[in-house]
């Protein structure tokens, strides 16, 4: 899932300085799961803003909503009747949700309340680890389920480099060497020969926003476009 972190109140306050009526919208999927932008966090953020603005003698009127997913237009439609009553929207969704919100309600300024951090996994309550950089060229099949793009400081597809240091990366002893781990796990699974396969370098330069249409829905997209 996508992992996000609540922005400091100060930053949110400075974005909302000139606005008196703001609708805070949570997102009930990834950011709710990572305890950053679900219904509870909407309530907490609104209470913080209310306290801060009242103390600043610049009171604010706050609305609260939480939709299933801000990255789906259909769920944003639910806000249709509410948005008009506000000067601004504070979105607690990830960057994708904030942008869809801004696109759906183009006349209203939309501000992000969280920093979208990474694609990660949930180790325990409130504890997340980055696992994927969405490179678009998944090599996990040949790297024993360990992502070298995320875990290797150089993002090497063919490693390790000369900086591997007793199982750790040369950048520091807190960071395990991804390729050392890959080697160990491939060996454990008896498929070490796969480490010799050379994977062509990824084309990182000149990247433009990617669009994905699942094969089964390509015709549907053509139909919608025509």
């Amino acid at each position, binding site marked *: 899932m996508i992992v996000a972190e609540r922005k400091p*109140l100060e930053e949110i306050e400075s974005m909302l300085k000139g606005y008196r009526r703001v609708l805070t919208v949570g997102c009930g999927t990834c950011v709710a*799961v990572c305890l950053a932008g679900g219904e509870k966090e909407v309530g*907490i953020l609104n*209470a*913080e803003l209310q*306290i801060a603005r009242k103390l600043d003698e610049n009171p604010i009127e706050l609305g609260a909503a939480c939709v299933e997913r801000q990255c789906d237009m259909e769920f944003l439609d639910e806000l249709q009747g509410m948005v008009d009553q506000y000067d601004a929207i504070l979105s607690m969704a990830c960057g994708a949700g904030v942008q869809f919100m801004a696109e759906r309600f183009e006349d209203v300024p939309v501000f992000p309340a969280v920093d979208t951090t990474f694609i990660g996994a949930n180790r*325990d*309550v409130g504890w997340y680890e980055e696992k994927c950089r969405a490179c678009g060229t998944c090599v996990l099949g040949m790297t024993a389920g360990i992502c070298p793009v995320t875990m290797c400081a150089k993002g090497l597809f063919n490693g390790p480099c000369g900086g591997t240091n007793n199982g750790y990366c040369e950048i520091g002893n807190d960071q395990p060497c991804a390729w050392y781990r890959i080697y160990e796990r491939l060996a454990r699974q008896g498929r070490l020969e796969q480490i010799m396969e050379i994977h062509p370098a990824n084309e990182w330069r000149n990247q433009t926003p990617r669009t994905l249409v699942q094969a089964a829905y390509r015709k549907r997209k053509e139909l919608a476009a025509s």
Partner: protein
Amino acid sequence: MTAKLETAMEQIEIATGVLVVGGGMTGVATALEVARQGYPVTLIEAGEKVGPAAESRPRTGLPDARRLQDMAARLAQTDGIEVLTATRLDAAAGVAGDFKVWLSTAEDVLERRVGAIVVATEFDTAPLYDGYGLTPGGAVIGQSELEQRLAGDPGSFSGKTVAFVAGFAQSGNPMVMQRIFHCVKALQDAGAAGVYVYVGDLKVADDGLEREYRTGRDRGAIYFKLKEAPAIAASGAQVVIGFHDPVVRQQIEVTADCLVVEESLGVGAQCADLAAILRIDIGPRGFLQSDNIYRFPVATNREGIFVAGASREVRSLPWALADARNAALQVAEVLGDGTRLVPRDKAVVDIGKCTFCLTCYRCCPHGAIYWLSENKPVISPVACQACGICASECPMDAIQIGGFTDDLIRGQIAAKLAQVNGDPAIVAFCCQNSALPAGEMAATFRMSVPAGLRTIQVPCAGKIDLQYILDAFVSGADGVLVMACHPGNCKSERGNTYASWRVEDAQRLIAGAGLEPERLRFATLAANMGTDFKAIVVDMDQKIRELGKSRLH
């Protein structure tokens, strides 16, 4: 306010089978007692045999060995007891009244549905050679080895001198002494020439131990109670033991043919695995029970899972058998007649709001939450203790606790603050197990508390939502107190810990918003601390008067 009494109830069916883990005498006794109550039992033992053979208590000279053998033999003659040896608990799912367990035997993995589980495993022993600077071999042996030799060929000790050392490498324990007394008797029966026992602490606080000690001494065993371990020099087939005798005040040397080293009595090897499989808390010494004053001795943090005998503490046989009977009573309490009346609204998950993040499952200290693929999380009304930790952690506010819903509590905050006039308004969220009765005690004893104090009852401090605290300030509170049980005293294990974390977080948040963090305070109390309750609230009132009214008014 007290919890609503008009709660709607519903009757649910529960499984009445019982799994007993461990085939030593504690497990055997538990199985027999549970079966006697009419519930079907599956008894599993990792080893090949059940009964005295699976015991970690003295293997020789057991005064009631025959009785124990007879007890074990009754397993086979009792209806409704399934005994599986060489079998381990592989996995478990579900909650009290509806556990599913997977048991791996030598050939197969069996699945059973049970309503309750009793862990009755044995403790482990290990000779403490290092504690005496000794290496095993020659004349130096451990207690277990002596017991085996005495059971096999007691005649080999005829005419020999045997010495024991105990209570220097670990603190004294009656069970260590009991093993020694039994061996002393067996050695005397076998015609040993001399028996010497060197002890640091000679602890005999258990059934009949004083008598066993005296009988052995009367028959010629010599006990030395020393301040420090004797000097032991092992040379081939003999050992020389040198020590200062405090009675004759002389340095003495004794030569023995055999030196027996005491053994530690420790947590059974299976315990850690069982704790992980059953999701039960481990106590400070590694046994399967955390300290909790609210629980019966054999209870765990999970309803329907009990621990008896050495799985919870090194206990002598009579105490372990008492545990077995207690566990059987507790099992009957949970299983009843196979039906159970439970409140419908104990803890309700709004499936529409739930985002299935597993926070509730991970936070529940009672293991009362599980999930179904088609139905998202379910909070078992049997296993749930209604502490409200899950409800306060849920990121979607999707869980409501009967009698303590968000609407009810937030309504109370607003209503109670509206009544305060002039005085500093202080909202005190009080755990009903500690701070609330402490406050009631203060009132009964007519201690004067600040006029602006308004208490709000919560089932556990774990129910005090971060948002309630912020709400109180928004609604005009000048100060907020979060009052929980003392560390380690929480009925729900970690409710007070969650509350203290939330207070820290809320202090950070209100400070960020420009409010003095001193307006929020976390305090811990016990139910009988009325004077302390008064001191805390008076101190808070003082603090608020110094800070002045909240600028949020």
